[in-house]
């Protein structure tokens, strides 16, 4: 499994972010009055206490630390087994091909996928998802070194899917905050 975008510090960063968000919610909840503020206060308090415990887990007494950090695993969890099955998928693939996905364009697969997702989202907001969807599919397919036929197929599929949503559900995806290219469709 690639560690391209998951550095060890994310183990600490994650509860820290959750703590910050929950802290904000807790403080702001007092401005909503007794009724509307109760539920956000209760839930954020649980997150604050839990995240704090996770952050200081290494300094806790062993028994409490075990409760805070270690898996209860009462039944042999669904997610646990799913993860093992998926790990098996990777192992089987690696054993068969003798290699994992080759990093193209100088990026690991997870980093590229993450950057592509962010680019796709930003592009969708700026110029419209209808136009950016095929570009995303083409870029991903090119990065994966698919054949020209497969690239063309995926690009066409992405455009047709977006066009389907545009026409059937009347989604305003032909334009974005920066450009409105809905006139292009008429021209096409």
């Amino acid at each position: 499994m690639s560690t391209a975008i998951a550095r060890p510090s994310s183990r600490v960063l994650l509860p820290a972010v959750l703590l910050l968000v929950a802290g904000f919610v807790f403080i702001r909840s007092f401005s909503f009055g007794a009724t509307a503020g109760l539920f956000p206060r209760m839930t954020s308090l649980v997150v604050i206490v839990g995240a704090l415990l996770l952050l200081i887990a290494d300094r806790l007494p062993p028994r409490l630390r075990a409760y805070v950090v270690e898996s209860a695993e009462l039944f042999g969890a669904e997610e646990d087994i799913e993860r093992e099955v998926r790990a098996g998928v990777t192992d089987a693939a690696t054993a068969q091909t003798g290699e994992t996905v080759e990093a193209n364009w100088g990026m690991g697969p997870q980093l590229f996928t993450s950057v592509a997702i962010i680019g796709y989202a930003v592009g969708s907001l700026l110029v419209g998802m209808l136009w950016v969807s095929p570009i995303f599919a083409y870029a991903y397919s090119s990065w994966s070194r698919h054949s020209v036929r497969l690239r063309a197929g995926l690009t066409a599929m992405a455009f047709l899917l977006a066009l389907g949503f545009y026409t059937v559900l009347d989604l305003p995806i032909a334009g974005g905050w920066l450009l409105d290219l809905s006139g292009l469709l008429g021209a096409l």
Partner: protein
Amino acid sequence: MSAVLPTLAEAAGHILSGQTPLWIVVGLVVGIFFGALPGIGATLGMAIVLPLTIPLEGTDAIILLISIYSGAMYGGSISAILINVPGTAGAAATTFDGYPMSKRGQAINALTTAASASALGGFLTIGILILISPLMIEIVLLFGSPHYFLLAILGLAMISVITKGSVVKGLVAGSFGLMLMTVGIAPTVPVQRFTFGSTVLYSGLSYIAILIALFAIAEMIRLAAEDTIAEEAVAMEGSRIAGLRNAVSHPVLVAKSAVIGMLVGAVPGSGASVSNFLSYGEAVRSSKTPDAFGSGIPEGVIASESANNGTVGGSLVPTFAFGIPGSGSTAVLLGGLIMHGLRPGPDLFTTQLDVTYAVLLALLVGSLVIVLVGLTVIPRAGYLTQIDTHVIIPAIIVLSFLGSLALRNNWVDLLTVVLLGFVGFYLKRHEYSVIAFVLGAILGPIAESNLYRSLAVSGGSFDIFVSDPLAVGLLLAIVGILLGPALKAALTD
């Protein structure tokens, strides 16, 4: 019982009329497709289809989703049998005997045995559920607002304890999901919360966008590091009829495995991935030739496949009755119920009983379709297991993006999908329960409404949560479940 039969007849009329039969078939085929792709599975398939159900009538939408779930349970066996990699965790035990059967030139026997066992297991458990439904109605009607609030907390507690990762991580994830859903206008008083004056946040965050983020986007980022299963496919040889006969000639094994699946499915957090191993283990234990298991005998396939489809029926009990999903797939199903205005709980067993029965009957009909598809199409569809992961990823991301915008035409949903997709990736990486997170997001508005309703009835007193034996029992169950791991550790020491 007198009200049950006319409602059953009404539900039967519904599923055999209009477009409903089409949605059953479409759902099963889509489910089999997603199930057959290793690493994809029912939850992701249901999550990306969920926004597409918006134009459908509520009952049809739920039937489509449950058919995907059921189809994926069978679909998982295809790659398990043909390439020794289960498409879903629920088919993991199918590899033990399914793949050796394929290597011996009995791939078609194994596939049709799996189809028949899946169908029979599903058929049997749904039949049992219909029979015991009058009793379920009586039980569900005992619950009021305070109990539903406590049930939501109990569900989160159970998921936190049962799923991978520590109890504290599970609780943090679940509570964070609950907390995110407080964005927007409060349910009982017209107060804006965390909207920062922006109208796009007035209606809050969409739990469906959260669900797509955690089950689709986070999964695609994770899956990107995995490769295609390039194993050489086995030859598609064998007999369809022999496979069908295998399942039919082991009625006790089918029934026992299906019931194990149903019972396990009814426990939140322990779905088909647990039941198929339990059932396989029981089949080995009770067999006169236990050593033969693992060498490629049909009994191994039957035990696993009957159990995983039996789990589908069992998982509907806590989902429909109490709004507590047993797995990621039923969490999506719960999201679909709420999205289409169907509230889990008493309504689904009284005024909307026809919907519940229609879903159960659709699963019965679906079982027959699984046999038909398994006997006719699947023996020719081995190429499903050879699809490149990097073809699937862009397709699912595009569908997820389009689906997120289709929900409410609100760009906040797109941002939710992207942001929480990354959060979900890291949550999984560090063993926080994403199911608890999603459950929190889905149950948030329900739990908050029930909390306020209970407090309104009691005049603001929390005594209402200990005012009757049922509430006290639920409260004790929550405390017991949360302290269970600590007590277990103390007793072990």
